[in-house]
């Protein structure tokens, strides 16, 4: 019994229990939000204060890497649930939203704790199905279109990943990470290489990396704002990027995938940033920015070194925080001004000072300006690239930061700075359900940056286990 209640099991069973309880005919629908908020706070608390290494009876494990991801999942889910309370007006829609976030948490928590390829696939699919429905929640044409595109691309990724699992099973007779990695080290036929290629391609689709990014801007843009926070903040990071990091870290693919990841990462950084420069829609611009920032994570991973993995995971955490913050800001702006078209906005910092300030912090962190959190993770990535003998890629990473700064400054100027645009005089600061997450994420972005000398040894380095 004690084993059944240990932490890894709690992290997948409690959100599921919450979903079941609030859907029973007991009149407990009102408790759905509370369940989500309490569970996400509990998850964050346990990840910060409890020892990380535990194994559940399903062979679920929490190590340094899982811990960072579980913390990020708890944080982004918490923010998304609060934002939903403030922005989704329809009660029934909001109830479904909380349920789907809890189910997505089961999927994401499971996938960062499993140590088996097939189980990994199952939990990726749980997260994806919950995400499809979240995108289409309002049943509007653009939402349905965005969900459909995500579904179709996701199905391609699924086919690739399943084929890879089948090939690995054929070649090694195993699906657990440790045993497959052991067999891969022994060498043998070319099947594992083909399987590795298919699996990486599937994960890059899920991560929205160039050239598999077609679904991502439409899905992020069409989803309800609170769902965009979840999708942009954590879903694609766990279903795509985390799985890539885990498999690389466990030695599943050897070093053969490094050149592919370096190239895919660099192309994503530049293409995402260039596309973001030309956008008018706030959320679409953030979607392209996500593609670019995921490129940094993939690039860092491509070094194949311990420092590269540290940089990738650290940037993943930072990106979850500052991208969620930017999506919360976009939510606040659309909720108050009634539009996301940046050319129809302007001067909002005067009417929404907290949102305007938070936006400056988030954009500077994304662009890698010291001393904010994003600067340190990009620094680790660039050092990892340079030390592993990839100075050209390091230069691309540095120069692309300038592009990032350019498109974000353009956004800040068009939305928040300058003279207040006509018709926006009545705009007020966002409500508390949006302001609380805004302030929390802003403090984390600044705090991680300022406290890095203390956090590097205790939080950043344990992410890696070479």
């Amino acid at each position, binding site marked *: 019994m004690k084993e059944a209640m240990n932490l890894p099991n709690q992290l*997948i069973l409690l959100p*599921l229990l919450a*979903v079941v309880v609030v859907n029973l005919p007991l009149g407990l629908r009102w408790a759905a939000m509370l369940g989500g908020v309490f569970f996400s706070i509990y998850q964050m608390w346990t990840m910060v204060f409890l020892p990380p290494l535990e194994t559940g009876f*399903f*062979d*679920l494990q929490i190590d340094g890497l899982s811990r960072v991801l579980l913390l990020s999942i708890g944080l982004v889910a918490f923010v998304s649930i609060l934002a939903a309370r403030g922005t989704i007006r329809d009660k029934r829609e909001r109830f*479904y939203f909380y*349920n*789907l976030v809890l*189910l997505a948490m*089961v*999927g994401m928590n*499971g996938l960062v704790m*499993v140590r*088996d390829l*097939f*189980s990994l696939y*199952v*939990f990726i*699919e*749980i997260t994806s*199905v*919950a995400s*499809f*429905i979240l995108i*289409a*929640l309002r*049943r509007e044409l653009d939402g*349905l279109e965005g*969900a*459909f595109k995500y*579904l*179709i691309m996701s*199905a391609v990724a*699924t086919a690739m990943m*399943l084929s890879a699992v*089948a090939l690995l099973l054929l070649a090694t007779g195993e699906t657990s990470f440790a045993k497959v990695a052991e067999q891969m080290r022994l060498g043998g036929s070319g099947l594992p290489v083909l399987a590795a290629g298919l699996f990486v391609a599937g994960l890059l689709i899920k991560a929205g990396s160039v050239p598999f990014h077609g679904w991502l801007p439409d899905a992020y843009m069409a989803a309800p704002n609170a769902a965009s926070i979840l999708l942009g903040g954590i879903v694609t990071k766990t279903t795509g990027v985390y799985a890539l990091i885990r498999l690389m870290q466990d030695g599943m693919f050897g070093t053969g995938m490094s050149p592919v990841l370096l190239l895919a990462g660099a192309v994503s950084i530049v293409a995402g940033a260039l596309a973001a420069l030309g956008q008018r829609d706030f959320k679409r611009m953030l979607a392209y920015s996500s593609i670019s920032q995921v490129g940094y994570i993939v690039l860092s991973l491509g070094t194949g070194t311990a420092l590269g993995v540290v940089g990738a995971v650290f940037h993943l955490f930072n990106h979850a925080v500052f991208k969620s913050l930017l999506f919360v800001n976009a939510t606040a702006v659309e909720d108050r001004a009634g539009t996301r078209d940046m050319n129809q906005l302007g001067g909002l910092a005067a009417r929404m000072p907290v949102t305007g300030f938070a936006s400056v912090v988030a954009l500077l962190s994304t662009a890698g300006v010291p001393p904010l959190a994003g600067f340190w993770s990009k620094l680790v990535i660039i050092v990892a690239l340079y030390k592993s003998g990839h100075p050209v890629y390091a230069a691309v990473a540095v120069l692309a930061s300038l592009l990032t700064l350019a498109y974000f400054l353009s956004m800040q100027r068009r939305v928040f700075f300058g003279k207040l645009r006509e018709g926006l005089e009545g705009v007020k600061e966002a409500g508390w359900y949006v302001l609380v997450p805004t302030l929390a994420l802003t403090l984390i972005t600044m705090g991680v940056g300022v406290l890095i000398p203390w956090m590097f040894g205790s939080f950043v380095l344990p992410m890696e286990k070479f």
Partner: protein
Amino acid sequence: MTINLIIMLFMVAAALWAVLARTLLKGSIALAIASAALALLIFRMNGPLAAVFELSVCAGLITVIFISTISLVQPFTPQEVAARYAARFKRFWPLLVLLAVVTVICLKCWTFPACGQALPESADVMALTRDLLWKARQMDLFGQVVMLLAGVFGVVILFKEENPS
């Protein structure tokens, strides 16, 4: 052997139903039945691990994804369904040829001793399958139950009727 042949015929019939079904939803259900029959066949041919995977992936997960997808597309009107239903057989003539070719291959294969050897040793296979499902792959079973729940939410949310008030 006879039971295997019956299951195989059932599987082919379900697969044909999947292709010829009037609606996508019925097609998906037919495909799930075909997959379940295939899993049963693999199980009977001493491949419990492959059977468990086939059952999990094709009859379970993929069906949920199909039904979620279908819930996102606009259904045809009854007139469109009728028009397409009348014309659809013309598209499936090559299927008959394919079916004939596959049947010939299967019959040829059946003469190979290897196919005949793959008979179940029922007690061992049952125990192995039970262990696989409830011990080795219990995490996947749990995940699939959660996924079905997510699928149910999808159907409830996306198929729900608007309240006119």
